Structures are given as structure tokens and as C-alpha cells.
């Protein structure tokens, strides 16, 4: 975990709703898929957490949606401006090797899965990426790694199959590991598969510190015969699906 100032390399619209922010990688530590950054944004008292979508020695990228005050201000940053960032934060997806892998996600939740699939590619030949989206224009085509089998669905059928990505995923089988990220409804459904195979999900929650200090971001996690509130920022954001107690 470091606190560094990074220069914006680019901050552009990926599509109508989403932006891709690329900034210098001034971190000494490496990032792993699932890790997030906690970004200081002017006029906001609390930082804003974002999953890392792409990472290399030179730069880091996040993909975000403008949903409120903080992301609105972030979207106005331009090349050369500095941002105050804490990272890497949180745990990461365990990287399985030589398995038949399923990645499934929807909407903005795709961000960490992009990084994850880049990584999994190195160790696995069969990677299926189930990608649900509102419509053709909301899909982050330009940042999707190659060498992966994509199965798309859109709400309006404008690309891939029309319908919910989970319904399509259900028709497949034989996966040995499942990774997911996205809307809670989707994750809940995916987690049912954890009886059969390992399922890892990346969760989101409102955060204050982002560093495990305040216990603000907890979720219910099974512990032996009981449950405990665990911190998404420190004990997560990646949890084994069979441990999560959904609301």
C-alpha cells in the first residue's frame, strides 16, 4: 500500500456512460487482478474506490461511470493533471492454472475482470468470458484482451444474445473455476454454483478509509457455523462465493 501522486495520461470516454482513466504508474508495488485504488477527488471528503482494469509497469487504467459528485469531478481531469492515489488495496483473485475457466460479469463490474483475464490467459487455455451489457454501445470492446472466448448478451439484443448474461451462462457447463463481478443480483445467482466449483466474486461497498481501519465497508461472511462482518476493502474485495451471506 502506497500513497502516490500520479499524472493523468488520458481520461476519455469509452462510451456514453463510461470513461477510461489512465495514469502514470508511480507505484513500487505491483497490482494484481481484484486490487483497487482509492482516489482523492477535490471537494469530496472521502476518497473514491475503483478497481484496476489494466496494469503495466508504465501505467494503470481504471474504467468508471459517472454516477455522482466524485465521478463527475473525476471525469473533468485532463492529461497532465495530478491525482492523489492510494493503492494497491484489497486482496486479489486467486489465479488458477490449467483449468476450464469462466469469467462472468456485467456493466461497470467488468473492470477488474479485464485485468483478471489478462492474467489468467498466461496460465489457462480455455477461458470463457460471459459479458452482460445494456446494449452494443456499452460494451468496452476496445479494452478487451484477445485470446479469450467472449459470450456477449445485451438487454436490447443489439449485440450478442438478447437477455440476461446469467441465463446464457447457465446453458454452458464444465467450468472448473468461476470468477464474477458486477451487479449484486447477478453475483447472488452465480454464487449458487459454489457448491460445485470454486467461485470468486469481487464485491463493492461504500468505503471510508479503504485500508481496513474503520470497519465501514463490511459484509456478512460465514465463519465456521457462524458469521462475521468482514471488511470489503481489506479482507476483500474478492470473496469466495460460498462464504458470502447475501442481504
Amino acid at each position, binding site marked *: 500500500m502506497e500513497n502516490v501522486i500520479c499524472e493523468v495520461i488520458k481520461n476519455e470516454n469509452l462510451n456514453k456512460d463510461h470513461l477510461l482513466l489512465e495514469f502514470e504508474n508511480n507505484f513500487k508495488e505491483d497490482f494484481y487482478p481484484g486490487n483497487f485504488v482509492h482516489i482523492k477527488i477535490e471537494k469530496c*471528503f472521502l476518497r473514491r474506490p475503483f478497481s484496476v482494469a489494466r496494469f503495466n509497469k508504465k501505467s494503470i487504467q481504471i474504467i468508471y461511470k459517472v454516477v455522482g459528485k466524485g465521478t463527475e469531478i473525476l471525469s473533468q481531469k485532463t492529461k497532465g493533471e495530478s491525482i492523489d492515489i492510494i493503492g494497491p488495496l484489497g486482496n486479489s483473485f486467486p489465479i488458477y492454472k490449467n483449468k476450464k475457466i469462466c469469467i462472468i460479469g456485467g456493466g461497470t463490474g467488468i473492470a477488474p475482470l479485464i485485468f483478471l483475464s489478462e492474467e489468467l490467459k498466461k496460465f489457462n487455455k480455455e477461458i470463457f468470458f460471459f459479458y452482460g451489457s445494456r446494449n452494443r454501445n456499452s460494451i468496452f470492446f476496445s479494452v478487451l484482451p484477445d485470446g479469450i472466448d467472449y459470450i456477449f448478451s445485451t438487454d436490447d439484443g443489439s449485440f450478442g444474445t438478447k437477455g440476461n448474461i446469467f441465463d446464457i451462462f447457465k446453458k454452458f457447463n464444465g467450468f472448473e473455476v468461476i470468477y464474477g463481478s458486477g451487479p449484486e443480483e447477478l453475483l447472488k445467482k452465480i454464487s449458487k454454483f459454489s457448491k460445485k466449483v470454486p467461485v470468486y466474486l469481487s464485491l463493492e461497498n*461504500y468505503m471510508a*478509509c479503504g485500508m481496513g481501519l*474503520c470497519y*465501514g465497508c463490511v459484509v456478512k461472511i460465514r465463519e465456521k457455523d457462524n458469521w462475521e462482518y468482514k471488511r470489503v476493502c481489506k479482507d476483500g474485495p474478492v470473496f469466495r462465493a460460498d462464504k458470502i451471506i447475501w442481504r
Partner: protein
Amino acid sequence: MKSLKTKLGKIELATPIIMTSGTFGYGIEKINFIDYEKIGAFTTKTITYNPLRGNPQPRIYETEYGMINRIGLQNPGVFYFVKNVLPKIRKKFKNIFVSIAGRNEKEFIEIIKIIKKEKISAIELNLSCPNIEKKQRMFSQDSETTYKIISIIKNETDIPLIAKLSPNVTDIKEIAISAEKAGADIISLINTVKGLSIDLKRMKIIDGGLSGPCIKPVGLKCVYDVYKVVKIPIIGIGGIIEGKDALEYILVGASAIGIGSGLFSNANIINEVYNFLENYLKKNNLMLENIIGYLNEKDWLI
């Protein structure tokens, strides 16, 4: 560095910077970008007798220049703390203050019985927790219960006691005087301010405690008022986010200051406070102890 030395009664602090309760966890998480040498003392997140799960979500929400929290004292209980946490953090901090809370006198005493065997610098009594025997009021919302709980605990241990008070009272001076009379060695001011915010997106209410820069004037006012009526030292807390804020608390009477949610916003806060105070003192050729309460004693009002 020397100029930043301060004292809380018999406790000597290398710097006046204290990490406050609940905003630096149990001290286990290693925050790499912090210079631990610059921390005078660390106060643990409040420990209770039994483990507590704390409140359900939502627990936090951002407000105008601050935040609301309703963590609900999630903690692993005093036994676990003493056995598994304390040993791990001893070497990290020069002074450890253990914050404790009970729902009634009995629980407080039970915790004290365990904690008093440990080598720690002070016990902070979180008196902003509800007293279930008195209409769910906080202990420090009543001068009698404040007096009673502190004097009972004082009887049990020689470890210095810090009384952490809530600003949510009609007259903070009255409460502070009771705390001093009952034997508190130090007063911590302030805990969070009762506040509520609304997440219009999720249509949710977050009813909890307000912290951050927005409450600084409330904290300064409490320290200012209490400094006039007690002789024991005060830890000034509330809304510190940069060096200037720390100086302000010291000028109205705080012998040391607490960094709370400011750390969440300003990751460099410890360096900034440290450097600001050091430069200020050097420029004016003063030691920290020379300026504690300076503006209060002069009563520069007008």
C-alpha cells in the same frame, strides 16, 4: 523534534500526534506511507467485554466536508484483544492507549480487570457509548453517571484514565468537571457529533456520528470551554485535516491532538501536522508546551 514533546500528566509523548479511537483500527494494519515515528500515541478502536458484530449496513456516508458513521463498536472482545492483538502492536507504537466501553458499570469493571494486567500507557474510557441502565443515554451525557463510572474504575487501576466525552450535551464543562473530580487523568474531546444524512440514491438514512472538518468548530469550542474549568490535560480531537487545525486545538488548550477521519482524506496528514507544528515552533523559537492554551489564557476575544 524535541520541541514537539508534550505530556499528558505523567505520560510523555514524543509528539502531540495521537491516532484516535476507531479510525486506525487495532494498529495491526500496516499503513506503509505513515511514519510511525511521528505518532506520539495510538488509541485502539474501542474494545468491549464480549465480541460485538456491530451495526448492519449502511455504516458510513459522506457528508458536506465530513462523514457519518454508525459502525456500532464492532470488535473481537477484550480476551481476543489481549491475547492476539496487543502482542502484535507493542513494538509499533511508543504509547498505546486502549479504548474500552461497557454497557453498564459491571461490564466496564470486567474489562478493566483484564486490561489492567497489561503494560499499556493509558486506558481511554469511551463514555460516548449508551448506558443501557439509564434510558440509553450515553455515560457522558450526565455528570452523575460520568462521575460514578470513572471513580469506580479509578479504584480498580492505577493506569492513567482518559475520559472521552461526547459533545452532545447541554453543558460540556459540567461533565468535564465531574470527570476530573472522579479521578480522570486526561480528557479527550470530542467524540462524534450526532448527525444524520440521507442517501437519496438508495433512499437510505444514515443516523450516526458526524466527524471530519465540518465538526472542527464544535471540537475547538469544547476544548476552549473545558480548558477553562479543569486542570488535567486535554486531547483535542475533531476535524483535524492539516497542520493549522492541530495548532488551533493546541492554542485553545489541547496538550495533544487526535487524528481521526482526516487520515481517510489526507493520507499525508501525519507528516503535514508534524512539519507544520515543527516549523511554527522553530520560527517562533518556542516549545510546544509554551503554546498550549495560549489563546485561551489571553482570552483574545475582541
